[in-house]
């Protein structure tokens, strides 16, 4: 890959933008300069159809004048001065908040495992070879297991934040992903999906293809579930992540909590989950997909307890929402959480790496052995329709496995699952296997979770 601008060059670009804004009348200013390059290989119908790559860079500029905040962005360095003018003009619309941009001089944590030179040096031919491994591995599990969608992507990026208040920090690193969506037309048509992401070159592409194919093979010959009703579920990390993204993630944002939009509004100090469950937002975990020493406005990051021993401990704040509600920032400013280049968005409090901890029962089989009657759930469709205020969900699962007396007894046809994520967290049976980083949902959130067993889901065949 072509190397993007390095941290030093980005910091110089950010500092230059800060000076430009100050010279045009800003009382305070802050620039977020980012640059990245990526390579991606698309697999369709079992073959590589496209190799894509590119580079992006830009600057997002915040200014404060008369206590009012303004923001504008530009991709072209020649238009930074125009962006500064626009940001100042927009600040006039903004309420007078008495807000001051975050101060510099903070001590940043050291976070390891964020950069792998092997990813930064990855050539298109290497990415294509990895995509080939995904396809071949699926086929080696079953000759008719076709990777109809997926591929391999890798990227390297950096961001620098500088401000008139003394902030001067750079973050960045590498990441890669391999994904396989397999369709197997054998006795019946079945599907399998696997996706792995990492900050390092350690994603095993062949393992991704093989795992998706094995899911599809195992899902052959599904029969209808005989009887529904309320039962336990053992949920795959990726499916659990989807359920949490639409429910718990929006509920732990400070602004939502203060406005009464969160399911957990006014519940700080109360029991919201089983006493054995804890939830953290951890931007300092080594190798975390969203880890870094600084948040997106230059505040040092830290591990924030959200739920500890089942008790709700707190919410996430960036500097502006913290100022608004008279609390301290939790170092949780994220730009572009809903997608899109970070430099095009103002910072807002959001989840980085949401870690759900529950007592381990050992491996997945050990967790399953604790369930008398229930389903092993690999996928949930429609998790985005969950209600973030009530935490209710109604999803379908395409290839559930029935569990009877602690044993998997066979794959079943699609079922509807209805329940409440809050109730699930209060009835957690335990965790199985190692936690896994699940990214690539509708937002930038990374959710770190093992297999989770819980009871009280209503299943309709």
């Amino acid at each position, binding site marked *: 890959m072509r190397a993007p601008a390095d941290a030093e060059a980005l910091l110089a670009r950010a500092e230059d933008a800060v000076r430009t804004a100050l010279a045009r009348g800003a009382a305070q200013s802050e620039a977020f300069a980012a640059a990245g390059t990526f390579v991606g290989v698309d697999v369709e119908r079992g073959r590589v159809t496209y190799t894509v790559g590119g580079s992006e*860079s830009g600057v997002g500029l915040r200014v404060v004048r008369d206590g009012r905040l303004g923001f504008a*962005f530009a991709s*072209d360095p020649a238009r930074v001065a125009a962006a500064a003018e*626009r940001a100042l003009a927009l600040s*006039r619309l903004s309420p007078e908040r008495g807000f001051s941009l975050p101060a510099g001089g903070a001590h940043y944590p050291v976070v390891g495992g964020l950069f792998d030179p092997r990813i930064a040096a990855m*050539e298109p031919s290497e990415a*294509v070879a990895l995509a080939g491994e995904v396809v071949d591995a699926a086929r080696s599990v079953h000759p008719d297991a076709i990777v109809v969608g997926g591929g391999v992507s890798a990227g390297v990026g950096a961001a620098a934040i500088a401000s008139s208040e003394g902030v001067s920090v750079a973050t960045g690193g590498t990441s890669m992903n391999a994904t396989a969506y397999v369709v197997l037309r054998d006795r019946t048509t079945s599907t399998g999906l696997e996706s792995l992401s990492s900050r390092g070159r350690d994603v095993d592409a062949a393992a991704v293809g093989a795992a998706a194919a094995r899911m599809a093979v195992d899902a052959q010959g599904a029969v209808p579930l005989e009887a529904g009703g309320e039962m336990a579920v053992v949920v795959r990390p990726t499916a659990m992540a989807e359920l949490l993204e639409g429910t718990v993630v929006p509920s732990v944002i400070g602004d939502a909590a203060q406005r009464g939009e969160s399911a957990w509004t006014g519940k700080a100090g109360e029991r919201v989950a089983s006493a054995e469950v804890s939830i953290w937002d951890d931007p300092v975990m080594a190798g975390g997909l969203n880890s870094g020493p600084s948040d997106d406005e230059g505040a040092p990051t830290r591990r924030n307890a959200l739920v500890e021993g089942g008790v709700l401990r707190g919410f996430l704040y960036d500097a502006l929402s913290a100022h608004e509600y008279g609390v301290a920032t939790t170092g949780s400013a994220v730009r572009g959480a809903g997608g899109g280049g970070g430099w095009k968005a103002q910072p807002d409090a959001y989840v980085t790496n949401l870690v759900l901890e529950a007592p381990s029962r050992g491996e997945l089989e050990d967790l399953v052995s604790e369930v008398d009657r229930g389903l092993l759930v690999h996928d949930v469709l429609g998790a985005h329709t969950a209600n973030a205020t009530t935490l209710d969900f109604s999803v379908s699962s395409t290839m559930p496995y029935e569990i009877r007396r602690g044993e998997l007894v066979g794959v079943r046809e699609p079922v509807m699952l209805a329940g409440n994520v809050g109730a699930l967290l209060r009835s957690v049976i335990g965790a199985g296997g190692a936690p896994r980083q699940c990214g690539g949902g509708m937002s930038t959130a990374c959710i770190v979770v093992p297999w989770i067993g819980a009871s009280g889901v209503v299943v309709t065949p």
Partner: protein
Amino acid sequence: MHEALEGLVGRAARGGASYADVRVLWVEMTSLELKDGELKQAIEGAEAGFGLRVLVEGSWGFASANDLGAAAGEAALDAAMSMARASRARAGGEPARLAEARPEVAEVVWEPRRDPRDLPIEEKLAMLREVEAAARAGEHVATVTSSYADARRRVELATSEGARLSWGLTRVVAGANVVGRKDGRSASVLGRAGGVGGLECLERPTPVEEAARASAAVERLLDATAPPSGRMPAVIDPDLAGVLVHEAFGHACEADLVLAGESMLADRLGQQLGSPLVDIFDDPTLDGAFGSFPFDDEGVRARRKDLMVRGVLTAFIHSRETAARLGAAPNGGARAQDHASRPLVRMSNTMLGGGDRSFEELLEGIKEGIYVKGTRGGQVDTAKGTFQFGAEEAFEVRGGELGRPLRDVALMGSILDTLRNVDAVGKDARNGSPGYCGKGQHVPVGDGGPHVRVLDAVVGGM
């Protein structure tokens, strides 16, 4: 045409590419968001970038940058060529080729009638305050998020076949998301107006009218009762009808999904699949609709695609590559989210054609049924042809009359069964709400249609 970049396609061809195109995109945008009366977001920004696509011995490479300098062009040319050559190693025995399309030389700029750039941002904010006030009309409204966005896009496209195109358009959208609470229950409705064009897109309906509609709907939902479930006749409003034809039928007409074995419509062209009352078309030339454009992102002139005519499946939506693979003519269905995204087969404005009945006539004769309006999302399996959608609002229908409001209503079933069961189509076809369609990339789309009656619809609670 951007000179430094235009030259890349000829050089790619001389370097061994059988085809190359370069697409340069300039975007200027404004976005405002007001939450509970307070300005949360005011952003103005500008971005320019390009994407270079090359086809070398049947394999694609695509390189992009948001830097229009000559050095970035050089780097992209090298990268795209080396990526295409890398793809070849694993392309299998199916080289990509493109169906014939006339290389056009044209410049088309859809100038807005009322350019949003002429309206001072203070007045845009004042408009949002009116939207907010209208949304607050309901007694139990708790939170209102109102937003306004405009974007001006200009595209230049050059191909190694000689096409030289330049087109431009403006898009505007504004509205409010209204959340209400009462007795521990909550309900939310999004009301949004917009289209391709200028501020004239906010005239019919206005965002203020949409916010008022959303506010009234929230109040009704807070007092609504749980729905019945089972099979019953349903009257579907233009918004939900539009989303149904887009999600459950339109995606299955995308030729890339057909080729991938992910569409239940593969091998069914020419078959009578729906009621003879059903016409479905995708039309990027509809004046002012949110998904309109003059050329697709491969430079093929936009045109209406009749997908279903009197219940017969008549066409798929194509890129030049899928058209070549399926032996069809290109029909202008390749769209890219931005300069950094390669074109994919996409819909534009997907519409159910109009009929001859009034709304009252559709209700007439329904002894017990349901009227469903709008959507709050759902899921579709294009391979199996099944869908489940949550309606935004619903009412019972008894003895041909609208009755009590119902909440949390889901409409589900098989799309082909549903199209076969259409027994009456309204004459009140209109564009639905502006929306965005996600398929790895997000593009603005429109959809809509008339009120339509479906016998034997499957209705349930959510």
